[in-house]
């Protein structure tokens, strides 16, 4: 595949992987937790690097998964101990992220891991960092990692579809039926961590939040079916990736930045023109209604 093809594929995989998880986060009103986890996984990545002295996918996933769970757990714990929930997220997220940044400065210069990279990502380098097995080039590592995490996300959502739905809509009913809502919460937090790590290389810690939250928030405006919202959110993520790639190449700007910007543009369009909830749509409907009342 061409250089451009790999970048586009990476972008689409980021969009789909983050988009489908993001839809669940939006519905569970946990967008800010995703923001926190997307930053604190940096600590997990750095710790995994210290342990293994390499930037391989699996140790990074494990490190990030553990720190992601720790983040979710600490936020929950502070919250239930009387700290305001917004403040709880703010405290945990900045502390763990800062620790990651401090530890990052102990990583040698020769290693492809620095703050700039961690925050912004470098999707244009993705095609160069390939994985070869027995001398055969299997393509970029990031694509494999993203593909694996996407598969995990899809399988998990399909396996626990009913349970995720009821525990999102009515957690008390779910708990009364014996559905393990705490387990599902941390399972979802793990998926957020994995998705973030897999997307890290390409879009970085800040923009991955856009890929997680904005397609979900957009899909929320466009549909009133739970399952369809997850699919739509994934599609919107992919669309934003393609738009972003086009914009980035056309204007010669950061592709990751253009992808996140595209998410914003799609959201703005939905916010204004969504058939049922759009601001402009509502205004237009009112206007039409008003005229029909005044001039029957």
């Amino acid at each position: 595949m061409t250089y451009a093809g790999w970048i586009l594929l990476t972008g689409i995989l980021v969009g789909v992987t983050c988009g489908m998880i993001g839809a669940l986060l939006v519905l569970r009103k946990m967008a800010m937790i995703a923001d926190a986890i997307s930053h604190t996984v940096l600590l997990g990545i750095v710790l995994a690097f210290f342990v293994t002295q390499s930037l391989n996918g699996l140790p990074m996933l494990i490190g990030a998964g553990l720190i992601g769970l720790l983040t979710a757990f600490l936020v929950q714990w502070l919250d239930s101990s009387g700290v305001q929930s917004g403040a709880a997220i703010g405290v945990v997220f900045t502390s763990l992220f800062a620790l990651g940044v401090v530890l990052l400065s102990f990583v040698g210069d020769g290693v492809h891991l620095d703050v700039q990279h961690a925050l912004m990502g470098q999707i244009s380098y993705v095609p160069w960092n390939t994985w070869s097995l027995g001398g055969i080039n299997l393509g970029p590592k990031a694509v494999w990692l993203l593909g694996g995490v996407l598969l995990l996300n899809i399988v998990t959502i399909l396996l626990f579809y009913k349970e995720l739905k009821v525990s999102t809509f009515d957690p008390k009913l779910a708990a009364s039926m014996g559905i393990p809502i705490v387990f599902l919460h941390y399972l979802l937090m793990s998926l957020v961590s994995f998705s973030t790590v897999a997307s890290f290389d390409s879009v970085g810690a800040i923009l991955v939040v856009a890929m997680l939250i904005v397609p979900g928030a957009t899909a929320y405006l466009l549909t009133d079916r739970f399952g369809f919202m997850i699919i739509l959110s994934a599609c919107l993520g992919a669309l934003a990736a393609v738009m972003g790639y086009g914009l980035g190449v056309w204007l010669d700007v950061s592709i990751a930045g253009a992808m996140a910007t595209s998410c914003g543009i799609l959201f703005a369009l939905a916010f204004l023109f969504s058939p049922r909830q759009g601001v402009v749509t509502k205004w237009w409907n009112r206007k039409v209604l008003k005229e029909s009342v005044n001039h029957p």
Partner: protein
Amino acid sequence: MNALEVADIHVTYDKQPALEHVSFHVPQGSLTGIIGPNGAGKSTLIKAILQLIPKLSGDVTVYGQPLKEQRKRIGYVPQRSEVDWDFPTNALDVVLMGRYGHIGMFKRVKKKDKAFAMECLAKVGMEEYADRQISQLSGGQQQRVFLARAIAQDASIYFMDEPFAGVDAATEKTIIELLKEWKEEGRTVLVVHHDLQTVRSYFDYCLLLNKTPVAFGPTAESFSLENLEATYGGKLALLSQNASLQEIGV
């Protein structure tokens, strides 16, 4: 046989006791009203029984067994305000959620489940609204959807948290008819209830609660002026300005 036995439940919120020494037992096939002022711990009691919140101590047995073993026989109707009605789903889907416990983990919803959920909707006069997005339903219709979901749970014992709050007269009638039908079928129902005027006509048993049980027993005995005064304190005077005590029936 007792459908529910509650022994010495204690619950605290931030060191403040929310419930103390709550013990009572409910016979099978009865309707029990849980009555008390705001903040008396009525919802907390239901949640503690169902293990939705941690309790400091106390035992709960349902049909002679620990609650955990009887999850499938339990139906729960939370307060309408406890869920987000903007959630992207329709009425039929909410009713189907009542079947999830029976369908079991890792299994898909089947046609017969959908057909059964439709029957449940029809039972509360909501079959026309099956495809309706839930945010577009009125308060009374939303409560009917919750009722249909409870029917779908096909439980032996139901816990309902203020099902009559803010519903129209027709919905209230539907609910009480359903409760009576459940009773006929030998099911047991516990209802957190606010309206003192209807206690006598609705419930066989009455638990008067203010952090600790003031009285429990057949409504005719427990729902007395003396017990109400002990439960509500000075607030009963306020209540009786709106409804005379004769209307309440004490």
